[in-house]
């Protein structure tokens, strides 16, 4: 909540495009079942690559209601975002006609934007990489929309919600999905907008992305067992599994939502981000900056570590991340870090870079709604250095009112968000 304006943002609608699940309902079913959606790459021939697995979306743009013209014009990441936004808007029950467009904004997060379309078009204009002086005459007319990924936010804004307030794309690597929603919540809290369509999208499963993670050996080479390849917090983990997808929310000012009788998933009570200023890809083992982001997010939410019922971890499954993060939880939550369940849904839907932060916020909102926390799949051999309760293999039912979700990204970005259920205060008082 903003101390000056007394305003705060609540989630009233969710839309999802995820590996193994298009739509909120199948997404939650997949998570609760602990089912994994990682598999051998089908988007292109992965034979020459070190890591040949990914969590892909079985996404049929046409079946999801996009027109042929939209499909031609929009990158896959844009298509995901538009489809997720439509579901979120529908889910919120918001009546666009009743709203002032200038009080509606959009923030979409994405780390690599329209990279797949850019690469496809590059292959054409360079004649398969043969010419440096690429050929402008064979370029598609909407190439500029791939070049500058703010086109993703623009397409969402121009679609169902017809936003005329602040619109932007946030691109802070793998914390984009958290930072985009954090920024949107802040725009509502400070009074710039009443409704924000906010979330994140990514469709990075293309040769250049796979090759660049190969080059730094960040992705898992467990090509012979794709379903078990993403093993956050497991002793045998060997890197992350690339994913794709989108989650887009309708955020509203709390009173705005109350007045129209909207059903609230959760309130965004705290958010903070910090830089490690350490390394573009490396992490300090002590998790210092993530711990600071968590402390500030908790302080903004005016809550104590002991109120946190569930921690949604970044849990990418790289050696360094899972240790870094475990240290950050201990440093920021103290003894409570050992008591609260922590899990990583990347074990099931992979790591969709900029999108994953929003998909994880969705998992948190649904955990609050259903009083169930999703498991960490594939966690069979605990790493002695990761000694918290990571909810291995099976979802767990428990009262979930306050949730912490965190992200960590290339560039050294560390972000943390606190979400609270609509009846969090009631239960705390009881």
């Amino acid at each position, binding site marked *: 909540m903003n101390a000056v304006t007394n305003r705060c943002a609540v989630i009233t609608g969710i839309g999802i495009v995820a590996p193994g699940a298009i739509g909120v309902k199948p997404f939650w079913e997949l998570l609760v079942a602990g089912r994994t959606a990682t598999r051998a790459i089908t988007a292109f021939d992965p034979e*020459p690559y070190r890591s040949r697995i990914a969590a892909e979306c079985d996404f049929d743009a046409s079946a999801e209601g996009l027109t042929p013209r939209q499909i031609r014009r929009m990158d896959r990441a844009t298509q995901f975002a538009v489809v997720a936004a439509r579901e979120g808007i529908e889910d919120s029950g918001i009546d666009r006609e009743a709203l002032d467009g*200038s009080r509606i*904004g959009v923030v979409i997060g994405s*780390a690599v934007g329209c990279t797949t379309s850019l*690469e496809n078009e*590059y*292959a054409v*204009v*360079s004649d*398969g*990489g043969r010419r440096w*002086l*690429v*050929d*402008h005459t064979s*370029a*598609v007319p909407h190439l*500029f929309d791939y*070049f*500058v*990924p*703010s*086109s993703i936010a*623009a397409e969402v804004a*121009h*679609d169902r919600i*017809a*936003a*005329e*307030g*602040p*619109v*932007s794309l*946030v*691109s*802070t*690597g793998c914390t984009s999905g958290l930072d985009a929603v954090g*920024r949107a919540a*802040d725009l509502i809290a*400070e009074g710039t907008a009443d409704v924000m369509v906010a979330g994140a999208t990514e469709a990075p499963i293309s*040769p*250049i992305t*796979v*090759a*660049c993670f190969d*080059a730094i050996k*960040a992705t898992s080479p467990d090509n012979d067992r794709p379903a078990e390849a993403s093993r956050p917090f497991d002793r045998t983990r060997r890197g992350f599994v690339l994913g794709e997808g989108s989650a887009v929310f309708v955020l509203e000012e709390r009173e705005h939502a109350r007045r129209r009788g909207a059903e609230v998933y959760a309130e965004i009570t705290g958010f*903070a*981000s*910090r*830089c490690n*200023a*350490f390394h*573009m*890809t490396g992490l300090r083992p002590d998790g210092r*900056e993530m711990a600071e982001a968590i402390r500030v997010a908790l302080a903004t939410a005016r809550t104590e570590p002991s109120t946190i019922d569930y921690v949604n971890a970044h849990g990418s499954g790289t050696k360094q991340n899972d240790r870094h993060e475990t240290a950050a939880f201990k440093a920021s939550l103290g003894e409570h870090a050992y008591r609260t369940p922590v899990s990583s849904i990347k074990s099931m839907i992979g790591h969709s870079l900029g999108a994953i932060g929003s998909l994880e916020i969705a998992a948190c909102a649904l955990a609050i709604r259903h009083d169930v926390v999703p498991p960490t799949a594939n966690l069979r051999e605990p790493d002695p250095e990761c000694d918290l309760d990571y909810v291995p293999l099976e979802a767990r039912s428990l009262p979930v009112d306050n949730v912490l979700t965190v992200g960590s990204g*290339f*560039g*050294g*970005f560390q972000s943390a968000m606190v979400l609270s259920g609509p009846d969090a205060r009631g239960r705390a008082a009881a």
Partner: protein
Amino acid sequence: MNADTVITGMGLLAPTGLGHDEHWKNVLSGASAIGPVTRFDAERYPSRLAGEVTDFVPEEHLPSRLLPQTDHMTRMALVASDWAFADAEFDPALLPEYGVGVVTAASAGGFEFGHRELQNLWGRGPEYVSAYQSFAWFYAVNTGQVSIRHGLRGPAGALVTEQAGGLDALGEARRQLRRGQPMVLTGAVDGSPCPWGWVAQLSTARMSRESDPALAYRPFDAEAAGYVPGEGGALLVLESEEAARARGARRRYGRMAGYAATFDPPPGSGRPANLARAVRAALDDAELRPEEIDVVFADASGTPEEDAVEADALRSLFGPHGVPVTAPKTMTGRLSAGGPAVDVATALLALREGVIPPTVHVSRPLPDHTLDLVTTPRRARLATALILARGHGGFNSALVVTGPR
């Protein structure tokens, strides 16, 4: 609560100069830096002019360790960050651990670096792709590299709203200050001077195809025929007045008094563009009336339709010929997200010096625009300036600066 954001340092690299002193001298004298593309052979392309930062030698400014892992625009951003802190007489090591944040805007990222790696991948094979490709091209790269270079561990941000991002970054930075952050380094340094970036920009058909540097980019002119792209940008040190005073900062270029962003309605909706509404909201935010604005730094698209939208917006707010309007970017070309950040810096220098720098090359301003277009340097008492920026696809941003009190 808006009077408390001050600008205490700037680091600028533009086609018009390395550093804001050289830049200011050149824009005052109307010295255009637009010329033939030299970074690659542009002969085969229908547009062959650019605003390049020609005398920037990265090796003279940066350790060799940083060079293999950085795109050209990131190298310029790193140097801009050095200069901004030096100009603010500030050593980041002296601030509390999380005291300084970084927010930058990008448009296409380190596109030249990305182009090279795409060529390595497609032309030679995956094993030729650099380990640095995982971050050197992406949109957040300048924020990450600048934070590492100076040990800045406060909040990080990176926005993409095409050209408007150069102002939106400052808006986001001010939001961080309002949340209690003492200082944020913000702005944008941008540019994609490689064949692949060139072809991507050509696809809009808004790039000027004129071959004479004096005729190629003439916003608001009867002969306006598109824009010339360029590279460069500026990073600014934004502080709360309280933090600036506490550290004994001696200089204030001015205050960031107001800011707002809007988005245009969907094409075909019949609803008007929202640039004017962005200006009105920024003025409200600054608690200023239109007649209190002393000069406008225009977005100056250079395409007739978009020039008309901007001229209409200015007329609706200020009346015909109601306020001096200028576009020094006619000397640099449009620097993607970097351009509006340079405009903010130029506006602050104009306030300090009491001179409006000119718009060059515009010999026949369209009378219908009813603009008071400044085409030669004009002395004036300047206390306030409005800077406009638009991003491809419907993004509008407006920012108001006022001089130091």
